[in-house]
């Protein structure tokens, strides 16, 4: 046993999104929802999809957004930029799930949805949304990265961090202090 961290490599899966190529057909939404339906393919319901195309057709905004990791902060999403004579909205640049919108929640339960890169059993070589994106707006890439292997974190640590992200450390500490006094 050594206390030093070991160097390892791991495959990082990526879906690259080329906004200029998107034709707004939403095939990605259809295929994603079908693949993740239980039983598999039992329904195609874009409202359950983990990838959604945000439209603002009059401003030529077509942005496929995946249900990525939760971001603790909302951006205002209201800035627009002009690049090469073309207007872009702020969300054109952002690849994460947008908490500013009501996306990525199961319509029945309200529980959050998250893209799993179609890794459920059996894992797909290429995620479903990419497979049906014939216009190549979505492309799949793998890259090998060197990672520092670390001890798996304790459950409590993960939980506390999540609470801190949600409420801030100060409130968390205050609450913990108050509760511990009661005990």
């Amino acid at each position, binding site marked *: 046993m050594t206390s030093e961290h070991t160097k390892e490599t791991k495959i990082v899966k990526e879906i690259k999104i080329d906004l*200029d190529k*998107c*034709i*707004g*057909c*939403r*095939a990605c939404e*259809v*295929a994603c929802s*079908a693949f993740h*339906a239980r*039983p*598999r*393919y*039992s*329904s*195609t*319901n*874009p*409202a*359950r999809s983990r990838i959604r195309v*945000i*439209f603002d*057709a*009059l*401003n*030529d905004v*077509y942005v496929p957004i995946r249900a990525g990791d939760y971001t603790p902060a909302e951006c205002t999403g209201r800035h627009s930029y002009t690049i090469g004579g073309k207007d872009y909205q702020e969300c054109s640049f952002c690849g994460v799930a947008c908490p500013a*919108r009501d996306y990525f929640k199961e*319509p029945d339960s309200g529980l959050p949805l998250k893209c799993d890169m179609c890794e459920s059993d059996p894992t797909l070589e290429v995620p479903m949304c990419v*497979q*049906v994106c*014939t*216009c190549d707006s979505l492309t799949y890439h793998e890259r090998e990265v060197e990672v520092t292997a670390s001890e798996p974190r304790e459950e409590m640590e993960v939980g506390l961090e999540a609470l801190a992200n949600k409420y801030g450390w100060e409130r968390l500490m205050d609450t913990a202090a108050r509760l511990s006094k009661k005990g």
Partner: protein
Amino acid sequence: MRYAETGFNLEVDLTRGNIERVRTDPAWTELYLGGQGTAGRLLWDRVGPEVHPFDPENLLIFSSGLLHSTPVPGANRTTVDTFSPQTNLYSHSLFGGFFGPELKHAGYDKIILRGKAPDLVYLWIHNDKVELRDATHLAGMGALATADRIREELEQPEAQVAAIGLAGENRVFMATIEHANSSASRGVGVIIGDKRLKAIVVRGTKDVNIARPAELFGISSPMYRAIYENEFCGDTMAHEDDEEFHVNNFAWGNARKRNLGFWNKEREERWKAITESVRLRWTGCYNCPKDCHQAIRLPGKQTYFQKCYSKLTYAMAAYEEIDFNYEILALTQEYGLDGFSTPQVLAFAIELYEAGILTDEDLPGFPSSGGERFFYLVEKLVNREGVGDALANGVYHAARQIGKGAEEFDHNSMKKFEQVPLKLKMINYPYFLMYATGEKMNITQIEGSYPQVPIADKEERQRFVDRWDAAPERFKKWFLEWEPRTHPSVEAAVNICDWNETMHYIDDAIGTCAFLSSFRGQFGGRPPYHIYNLPQFISHATGLDMDPDKLWKVGHRNRNLIRAINIRRGLRRADEKPPEDHWKIRDPEMEKRLLDEYYKFKGWTMDGVPRAKTLRELELGFVAEDFLERGILTEGDDSAPEQASAGE
């Protein structure tokens, strides 16, 4: 359990504001599948021939297709069915985009509208919550702008909207219903306007059940690439910069003359540069890999969508260039005007002015160039101002209202509806039949499975036939025998018309786009969907036991039902006349024979009325009884000949 359909329609009485969710009869799905088929049955049952299109009793039906909201790529065309004040006949249109699938996810297969709202309203459907809301603040607003405004107002960025612009509000006969990148034309926009409904807004998040999901997904997913890579489907011409086909073959002005010699390489380069400078991107419809629609933005103007041959219709009617076409579309799309009929109406008015029938009194300050005149006339038309009030009723009615010989200038309408401006030399047998007998008013909604032109080289012809999976055997034989500059036999012509129209009736029931099937066999002969593979998609989706013969029969049933609706409103053989100058060289004897043989083949009387036996064989016995009761038919008609099936 209902599969591929929700099993519910939404019934909205706009007069009383009453809204009901009504369970549908699954037997109807087996008989008519859905879309236009089931809408046709509703119109037959509930709108009698005495109902005028502007009566509150007229229904306006928005139907999803049977395959909408299944994984089948390219199933997204919503049908709109009603009666038209222009023709006083059945009026049918289709639009792409995202509306039908969204409606099904909200829990409804159809929206059935009746009555008239006291003031401008919009219908908001959010799953089980459905309400009529005030739309007076949206009066006069453009169609796409209305959609944006409502989405903002409801805080529903994902809601799908179908809306009208000023043309619909003012009951202009060529008004459209606009949705996303698509439009419904051919006389349905005037009815939604008459019903004082500015828009329908839908958001749906429910599931739609599929009978054999894994099997259906299994055959659907390879279709994405198959469709994407198939160069013979989608709007193939939209992506070409060489416009020779339309510019040279279609007539300019008021469907008057061909402008041969206009097209050249220099113009192609110039038009291409203009198009590229205004195009933001190509866009597609729900779950379809083809990108048939251009998003267009001119400096200082709102974005709009251009589709099909509307890229040229205004320019050719006004004798202008393509930049003019893009400019006027920016206006007419927001007003919600049909890009096929409107240019013809405007060109007709210019002819009347030049002939002295319309004067400076009718058109004060009338400009001198074609383009400026079009902009001037559009305002009159859309506001029904002055002579625009007559023009807004279409060429046929306008000619009779204006009088003074204006009737002579109405040379391109049939069944009182403006036809595609094609003025060709030699009569074409199958086309004669399709024009004459079609119920869908525009040839593009009837033609499409059998090739338009023969292949001269015999070996190439053989190769074409060898891989012609879409065609029933008999057509292969006829195509192999077809030499350039010859007519197909009468028997072949009748069958070609039958096949072409049948495929459209199938598409329009299940919601698949004609650009992937019924319209896309005529060049290249390789439509991704056809009579032999569609049954499998329908079977897996619905659990019905469908095969090519049964599907063919459904197509025939729906075709006869729609025919019957028009027959009950008075349509007869005498109305089935393509415009006199449609072909320069006509053959009245052959035309009579063609029509006789077609009616015989269809099992109709020589007056074009489906016979009782035909109707009963198609399980349309209730139509036969009605015809007998009304004296449209008398019992004891000659028995109808056997009809060819898909497998022959």
